[in-house]
């Protein structure tokens, strides 16, 4: 099974909209899923400017975009990925 990659946007909009608290995932994910899931920060996912409605913070779990991301929502998406194989 391929490793799942989680990318957290660290751009201005996402950061002030709550991405700062998503940094919890950095410790939480490896302790829960070991090396099956990798968490990365990216300078900007560039979704904020491309979409008309504000849905920051943005996180991607492989090709899926999580909008208004919270730790719970991201974990939920990881779980879904893992269970679908």
């Amino acid at each position, binding site marked *: 099974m391929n490793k799942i990659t989680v990318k957290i946007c*660290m751009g*201005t909009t996402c950061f*002030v*909209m709550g991405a700062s608290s998503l*940094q919890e995932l950095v410790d939480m994910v490896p302790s829960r899923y070991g090396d099956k899931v990798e968490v990365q920060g*990216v300078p900007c996912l560039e979704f*904020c400017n491309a979409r008309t409605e*504000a849905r920051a913070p943005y996180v991607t779990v492989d090709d899926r975009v999580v909008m208004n991301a919270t730790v719970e929502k991201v974990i939920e998406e990881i779980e879904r990925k893992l269970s679908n194989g």
Partner: protein
Amino acid sequence: MFIDIDCAQEKKYNQNTYGDYFLSKRYPEKGELIAVLSDGLGSGVKANILATMTATMLLKFVEAGTNIKTACEVVMNSLPVCQVRKISYSTFSVVFCNEEGEVKIVEEGNPQFIYISGGKVIEPEFSVIDSDTFKNRHMHVYKLNLKLGDRLVFCSDGVTQAGLGSSHLKLGLRRQGLIEYLLEKIKENPDISSSDLAKFAVRVAINTEPDRKAKDDTSCAVLYYRNPRYALIFTGPPYHQEKDNEYAREFINSKSKKAIAGGTTANLISRELNIPIKCNIAKSAGKLPAVSYMEGVDLVTEGILTLTRTTEYLENGFKGKEKDAAYELMQFLLSSDCIEFMVGAKLNQAHYDPNLPIEIEIRKNIIKKMAKILEDKYIKKVSVRYI
């Protein structure tokens, strides 16, 4: 050549303000600089007012286009005399110089400056102008041509008379004593900045006092001709997207130290030049996104929030405990002499969403404010280019 100038001071023991005053102003468009060091009679508030007045008058006078010699002569002839001690209200040294190394110096009452070139002290010729109104006042006028690496050290008599009357130095440190320390320090660290050398001289003076308490206001100003250190900051995506590649290449090929402030900007450079970005989210400190890493770039930070915080630090000083990305950016800026901003003019609509919990400044405004502080407070040469 770049003129690196700075002053270090210590106030007289038990006083609550400085009795010497140092003032300098850079004129970037003409490549000129004026600096004045004035020592006010006595110490504390009175001396501070006298020194401040003298230095400010001289600077304004020269700034208004008056010949430096004439300006100094007028001030020398008009400085009042203390009724009790029968000596001038203040003494001064004025230096007027340009980036080509042409320097004019006028001294009245302060210890003679020290001219250091190639690790040696040069004693230049000067002309003496006597005061028309006061017999005991004379000014020394110098005209010099300085080369790359040359330094001028000015000090108040608090430095040269440090330790006066002590058992091991009956006449104090004196000019010669200071010269020996300065030459030794420069030999040890040939590229020492003006700021560090001035601090060193003041420390030497204080340490010369038997009880390490300044007996007089102690100031040292250093002027150093050196090659400028260039810095380039790229922030914000360019207005015309088709020019992204051109600007990215210009940025990476620049010989300056380089910083990127902005996620989209970092992505743009990474994409156009195919350089990966390494982002460390775990280390995010002080409520700012952490710095990222990119090969060939000295510093990569988030944009608006970091720039805003950096401007605050530059304005009010860094008081936090955690060294965040804004602190790093401040250090990056302060360790450069000539700073160029490449400011992308493209707007990010998302930043203007009224639902954002924090007011986000317009990039152009922050840069404008930051540039002004860097020029006025830190005497940097700043240029801003909107792209």
